[in-house]
């Protein structure tokens, strides 16, 4: 275990290189470049506006600008999570040549998928700041929670990424299953809506470890409030558990990668 981590550290140069390659290729292939990073969040925000508009119509209330800001804030980490899992899932299969020909710790691939998506998140965050300023969203000292929330979602993304990467190498249909979960996951996660809308029943939604994180982002950036700390602690614990479990799962299967791909 300790040796494996030391080895990963030794190969960090390669990790950055693979992440750099993924970013470069992604931005080179699409003329859109920058647009690529903001496309998905923009689509999510637009969907959110439609959904929010429907709520407002049903409740005979005006469309609230701070709700739109909340959707925009939460759509970015969600897009990051989806993109990491999607790219990680294919990361081993798409690098078949490297998996079968050259030795290095293979968890580099899902981690690099996360780093590349993190870069997209960074680019999109720039756009988000402009958007929030236009919506006259204020800011508060509660922003200090944002890095912790980011850490939680990064750990979760890498953990899930490692599991789906290894599983999809052995079972070809895992990637379709993952796609289905990623597509419909947004309905079980508070992106378009807030957990508070459900009143007491909201806690059932918070059992999804992504929910308290997104809820927290919405709270500390869009609403200038503190995140729900007990639930955030629950999310962090789940993320850590997923990461450790995912890592062991990945490392357990790794010796067979070259033969099974």
């Amino acid at each position, binding site marked *: 275990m300790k040796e494996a981590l030391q080895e990963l550290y030794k190969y960090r140069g390669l990790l950055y290189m693979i992440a750099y390659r993924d970013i470069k*290729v992604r931005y080179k292939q699409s003329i859109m470049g920058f647009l690529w990073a903001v496309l998905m969040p923009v689509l999510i925000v637009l969907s959110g506006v439609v959904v929010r508009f429907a709520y407002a119509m049903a409740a005979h209330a005006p469309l609230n600008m701070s709700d739109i800001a909340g959707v925009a804030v939460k759509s970015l980490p969600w897009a990051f999570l989806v993109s990491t899992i999607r790219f990680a899932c294919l990361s081993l299969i798409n690098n078949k040549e490297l998996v079968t020909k050259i030795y290095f710790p293979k968890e580099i691939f899902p981690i690099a998928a996360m780093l590349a998506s993190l870069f997209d998140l960074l680019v999109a965050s720039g756009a988000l700041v402009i958007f929030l300023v236009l919506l006259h969203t204020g800011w508060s000292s509660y922003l200090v929670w944002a890095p912790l929330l980011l850490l939680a979602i990064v750990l979760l993304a890498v953990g899930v990424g490692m599991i789906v990467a290894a599983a999809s190498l052995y079972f*070809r249909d895992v990637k379709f299953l993952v796609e289905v979960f990623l597509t419909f996951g947004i309905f079980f996660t508070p992106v378009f809506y807030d957990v508070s809308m459900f009143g007491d029943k909201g806690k059932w939604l918070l059992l999804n470890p992504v929910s308290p994180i997104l809820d927290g982002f919405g709270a500390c950036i869009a609403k200038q409030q503190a995140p729900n700390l007990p639930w955030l602690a629950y999310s962090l614990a789940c993320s850590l558990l997923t990461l450790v479990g995912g890592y062991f799962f990945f490392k357990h299967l790794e010796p067979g990668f070259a033969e099974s791909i």
Partner: protein
Amino acid sequence: MSDVAIRMEHVYKKFRKGEVYNSLRDLLPALTGRMFQQQELSKSDWREFWALQDLSFEVKQGECLGIIGRNGAGKSTALKILSRIMKPTRGHMVVHGRLSALIEVTAGFHQDLTGRENIFLNGTILGMSKSEIESKLDQIIAFSGIEEFIDTPVKRYSSGMFARLGFSVAAHVDPDVLIVDEVLSVGDSLFQQKCIERMREVLRSGAAVLFVSHNMKTIAEFCDRCLLLEKGRTVTIGSPQEVISTYMQSPANRQATADNTMPVRITSVKVRDEHGECIHFRSGQRAWIDVELTAHARSGRTSVTFYILDNKFTNVFDISTERLGHEAVELQEGDKYRCTFEVTLNLADGTFHPSVVLYRYDIQTVSDRWEPAATIYVSAKDGVRGIANCFPQVVRQEICKASDSDAVWISSSLTSQGQRG
């Protein structure tokens, strides 16, 4: 230095053949099916075979070990275990220092990146640090010989350029252990020469080299020792010349396609010059091939085909008794038959494998095949390259000087030499 660079101790590798569930859609019904029927996985589903059995060897620093064997003998598996891509099922393996493998030199390339970007990417994958690559960048580009295309995406490269760039990067890793597998078959002959020189350099620097090739000439030239693998087992390890001749004469090698039930078998093939059996020939020299057959049962019309393979096992010459206008022979049980081919070896410099096959015209099948029946080394003067020697000469060479107002063609001195020859 006599330190051990590679040590393999009793390494075994098992593969599973046959049905493997590679999708959940197949696996889940199979699992539930087993649950209800209490059926064990049948042995045929998980047919196992040993790709390597009890492989042990050592390579010292500064030493080159060649590995030869037929396809499927386990050579590639051995290299994959050495480069830690695969884990041995049993046994132990140690490599001291940085290992660099020329197994698939373009594996790390990405089609959409430029040559220069790929140098950095591939260099990192092969274990170089960024500063190390930066310091060697000019050398790498110069070695590849594609300076003008270095900022072009590699998807626009020809396959030769692609391979050359890959090799250039791999060749500039300073390894303690270098693994080479058949890469010399890429690129033109000039580039291959560069590669060989680079391998010599690596060897001189005190690194250990492990070399897998079908090219017996290079193995013989390059390696200090040679290992022969057959069906995953070590047949012999020793001096390259001895091991190569063992390989060439091993029955498995000769009767690759022969059916044991065939009534006519080849019993001996001898290649000789005017003085007797011989393996070194000059280009253009005459050679005689004596073939002897024995019939174990009555056989129909049989003809003898003699052919020559080059070092890549390409057929470069092929003739049969039938095509030379001789009746195919019919043999009774216990009969023997002998024939001798006379050929002129108009071959270029290199290793060639004279081979013999018996063909039964009546039942349209191959009765016996010795491939190769022998290995000969042909040496050609004048630096003739390729396969055939067409005995070239320059018989005319003239210059027309632009500065000369009369524009007269002037013969250079070579012309007279050519005419004399």
